[in-house]
């Protein structure tokens, strides 16, 4: 297919090979008023692929809240944009690169990062941070996972991590956060979602709307090659089969140095004032960039392929239009001022060529050495593609009985060994081995890098004066296991946790971006999951005040007919009015009170005094149940969004008043893991072992000890506070109607002790627990 020439006569069969249905092909002919040639067919097939057209998701995405006081640009541009004060804006967006990362982990991940960075600087914003949300199959054998499979997953993880590191580190953007999760469903289909954040002056924002008949269209950046042809349509818009390895040529190859040149040159060219519009060439390359710029601007574009810089000889129009070679941009300059733009690119040693011009009449016209290679109305191509209201069917309810659920240990059991096992599990263990491979501190803005705070925190330097006032916080979250068990509630948790993490860093959540990873939309139960997730996100984002400003949908995440868990990954952006008031997770001083904040106003214990069966059922969805008992069942914890909101507002207020010394939300692994991580963070930061801090905690309640320690209900956080500030903390908590329970004290030394109902249930030296938590991942990955 990749060598197709324009002489091939297009038939229904060839259209089908391009992934177009009979109806879609009929629509193509209707729009053109004739049969397409092979180049035109290729163009339609990529533009109307699931990846580019959102044909299965569009009708649902419309339900998401996208407006807000601070939203400058919602979905539909290269990235979402929000107002961050003082004439500055933040552009941010998350995107998937799942399929390429399975076929070729290193290149798949690099080009994923490269693509999202281009989306940001295309808007005129300089990228200042990247976060990666990653999901892999299990990297440790057991619970039905073979050693061969675990080894394969470790190789994929290694390639993805190296790829992300390679690109971001060279480009010069800090990779400051994200999360890594492990579930068997990602063995054949890992998820690589990359989020980038950039900052610009509001008046310097750029959009991808071609304007001005006769204005020159300029191609800049890397030369076009045969790589990545049909990356968007064949790779990203179809599930994997046994033959998928043969799709390796569909994966693009990244060049971070080229991207760095492109960044600097584009930002400099924009400053000349001669650039009218700009769009990066990502998925569907030259096709998508020309079509979308023309369509958005209500114009046409004519280009001559003979002028396109090419890496290989003998490329057909089909190949040039469909290539997904990386690090390329298309821009429209003001007629007569093209020299100013071209000079900037020459200075940076980049190819920059006028390849065409903006035209009247709304046609995308592609010429090849004077010969017409394609002629398609741009607007219908971009906007009148197929839209499907795909069948939706709720899968049969799981017929679970209490025998399927986790059964709690007897009262008084010492749970320290289980706790250590949990701390060492890949999901909970420290990700330092991974994050140390990322440059986390370049650009000298990182106030909280990976693991330091619940969210990554980046300060904002004024682009002109360098003066720092505010900071931005970002967190990505999404528990696929919970979404599998209950997509609507799971999605709410994803949004709530991301916002809670941002608030626990002291920042006020302001907007969100989402990456929706699902199986095949052609399966009614997958579309049911999708629809439920959209409804859950809609409710949660409305309640939490975080409109969704953009993102991406990734369907067909399945291999050999088996779908991944529905995995919405939500990135929430928040703002700290005072950059010096970042909250971190680590305990700081001996003698500080440890306080559990609970947005659900009832007292601890009473809230958990639910019937035993409900607790068992909910607990079966926890990280502890999965790790210790191998049980994944039941339901995610019930969610109370108003409680989440109260807790978040309370945390933001506490940070603004410097009322607490540390804050860490309760999530995977429950209160016990939260407390331990606050001790560990103190240890990581300490220069001397003498500064080691431990915790002495007493919990009361009526539920089983495991539920109290490892239960994962939301709307909770643990803060540490100086004795002198305790009264102020309690007053603030009261004001926000958040329950505050003093549960213990930070102590000097090596003891980590939790009592439940009067007996010690966890009692272990911090150093020993720390060793398991800090080094498990590295040991697992290095031992093989």
């Amino acid at each position, binding site marked *: 297919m990749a060598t197709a020439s324009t002489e091939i006569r297009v038939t229904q069969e060839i259209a089908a090979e391009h992934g177009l249905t009979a109806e879609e092909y009929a629509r193509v002919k209707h729009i053109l008023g004739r049969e397409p040639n092979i180049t035109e067919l290729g163009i339609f097939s990529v533009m109307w692929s699931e990846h580019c057209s959102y044909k299965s998701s569009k009708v649902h995405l419309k339900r998401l809240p996208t407006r807000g006081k601070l939203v400058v640009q919602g979905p539909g541009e290269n990235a979402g944009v929000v107002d961050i004060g003082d004439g500055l804006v933040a552009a941010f967006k998350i995107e998937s690169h799942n399929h390429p990362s399975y076929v070729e982990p290193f290149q798949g991940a690099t080009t994923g990062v490269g693509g999202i960075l281009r989306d940001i600087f295309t808007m005129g914003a300089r990228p200042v941070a990247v976060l990666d949300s990653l999901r892999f199959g299990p990297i440790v054998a057991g619970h039905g996972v073979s050693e061969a499979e675990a080894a394969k997953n470790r190789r994929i993880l290694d390639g993805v991590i190296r790829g992300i590191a390679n690109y971001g580190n*060279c480009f010069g953007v800090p990779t400051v956060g994200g999360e890594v999760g492990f579930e068997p469903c990602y063995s054949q289909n890992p998820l690589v979602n990359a989020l980038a954040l950039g900052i610009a002056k509001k008046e310097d924002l750029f959009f991808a709307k071609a304007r001005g008949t006769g204005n020159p269209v300029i191609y800049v950046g890397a030369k076009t090659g045969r790589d990545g042809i049909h990356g968007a349509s064949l790779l990203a818009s179809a599930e994997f089969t046994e033959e998928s390895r043969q799709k390796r040529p569909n994966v693009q190859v990244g060049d971070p140095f080229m991207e760095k040149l492109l960044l600097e040159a584009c930002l400099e060219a924009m400053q000349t004032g001669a650039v009218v519009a700009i769009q990066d060439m990502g998925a569907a390359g030259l096709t998508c960039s020309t079509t979308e710029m023309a369509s958005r601007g209500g114009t046409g574009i004519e280009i001559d392929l003979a002028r396109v810089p090419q890496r290989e000889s003998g490329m057909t129009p089909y190949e040039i239009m469909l290539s997904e070679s990386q690090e390329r941009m298309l821009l429209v300059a003001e007629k007569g001022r093209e020299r100013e733009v071209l000079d900037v690119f020459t200075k940076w040693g980049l190819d920059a060529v006028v390849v065409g011009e903006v035209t009247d009449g709304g046609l995308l016209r592609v010429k090849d050495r004077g010969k017409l290679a394609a002629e398609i109305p741009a607007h219908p191509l971009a906007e009148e593609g197929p839209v499907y209201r795909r069948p939706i069917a709720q899968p049969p309810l799981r017929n679970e009985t209490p025998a399927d659920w986790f059964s709690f240990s007897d009262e008084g059991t010492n749970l320290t060994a289980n706790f250590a096992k949990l701390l060492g599990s890949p999901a909970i263990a420290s990700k330092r081995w991974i994050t140390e491979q990322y440059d986390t*501190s370049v650009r000298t803005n990182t106030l909280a890098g990976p693991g330091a705070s619940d969210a990554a925190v980046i300060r904002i330097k004024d682009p002109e004066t360098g003066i720092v006032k505010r900071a931005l916080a970002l967190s990505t979250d999404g528990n696929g296991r919970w979404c599998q068990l209950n997509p609507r509630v799971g999605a709410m948790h994803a949004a709530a946790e991301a916002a809670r993490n941002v608030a626990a860093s002291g920042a006020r959540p302001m907007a969100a971006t989402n990456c929706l990873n699902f199986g095949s939309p052609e399966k009614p139960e997958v579309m049911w999951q999708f629809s439920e997730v959209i409804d859950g996100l809609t409710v949660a984002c409305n309640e939490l005040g975080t409109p969704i400003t953009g993102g991406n949908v990734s369907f067909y995440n399945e291999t050999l007919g088996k779908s991944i868990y529905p995995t919405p990954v939500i990135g929430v952006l928040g703002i700290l009015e005072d950059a010096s008031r970042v909250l971190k997770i680590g305990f700081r001083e001996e003698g500080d009170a440890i306080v559990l904040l609970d947005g659900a106003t009832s007292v601890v214990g009473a809230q958990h005094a639910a019937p035993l069966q409900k607790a068992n059922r909910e607990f079966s969805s926890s990280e502890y149940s999965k790790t210790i008992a191998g049980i994944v069942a039941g339901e995610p914890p019930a969610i109370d969004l108003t409680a989440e909101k109260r807790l978040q507002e309370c945390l933001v207020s506490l940070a603004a008043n410097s009322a607490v010394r540390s804050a860490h939300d309760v999530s995977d692994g429950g209160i016990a893991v939260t407390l331990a991580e606050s001790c560990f963070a103190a240890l990581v930061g300490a220069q001397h072992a003498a500064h080691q801090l431990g915790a002495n905690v007493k919990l009361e309640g009526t539920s089983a000890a495991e539920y109290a320690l490892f239960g994962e209900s939301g709307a909770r956080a643990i803060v540490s506070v100086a004795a002198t500030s305790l009264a102020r903390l309690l007053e603030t908590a009261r004001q926000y109607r958040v329950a505050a329970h003093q549960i213990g004290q930070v102590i000097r030394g090596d003891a980590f002790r939790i009592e439940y109902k009067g007996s010690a249930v966890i009692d272990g030296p911090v150093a020993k627990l720390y060793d398991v938590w800090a080094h498990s991942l590295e040991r697992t990955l290095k031992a093989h």
Partner: protein
Amino acid sequence: MKFGVVVFPGSNCDHDAFYAIGNILKKPVEFIWHQAQDLANCDAIILPGGFAYGDYLRTGAIARFSPVMKSVGKFAKSGGMVLGVCNGFQILLEAGLLPGAMMRNSGLRFICRHVYSRVEQTDTPFTNAATKGEILKMPIAHSDGNYTCDEATLADLEKNRQVIFRYTTPHGTDDAEGNPNGSTANIAGICNRERNVAGLMPHPERAVESALDSADGLVIFRSMVEALVGAAKATA
């Protein structure tokens, strides 16, 4: 007094060095483009971190041939103060302005984290404001920071007291535990025999404010300022 920060197309710590000198130290500083022959009357030159020309061949291997490096070489030979950080250090090695070479980190991976380096010598323009034996906490961020040289060169470096920074543990022990990348003799930074050219792998420009977890790197820039003030007085 004026600092110059060289900008190679793939430099990515240029803005950070500029910010540290201009905004934190509040001293005059300007960028110098890699194709410039003219060092704009700067009194001290910083070669910042990054990936000068992509470094796909070998770190710094192409940068040494750039127009600006001809001028930097002349400037150094005439006694001008040159500091190379990370990629800048690698370039100084390739350019022969400092002895030795860099290999891939012993762990074969990129490492970014705070490390501890001991100030070994204080009679250089880069360390004169520090105390001998002082432990500086600064981040490293590199794949190729495993310093190596032959035995004769190492003996020379030690004899002439050219090793100015050595990796240590937080407590100041220069053993394998304190060595993040396998560098020979835990070398984190060296100077030339004339002591006017120095390179180090840790990033002092990323450690100039307590908000960034450490302000220990400031002492290196302060030393340079003091040396320049001293030199100006001497010629006045």
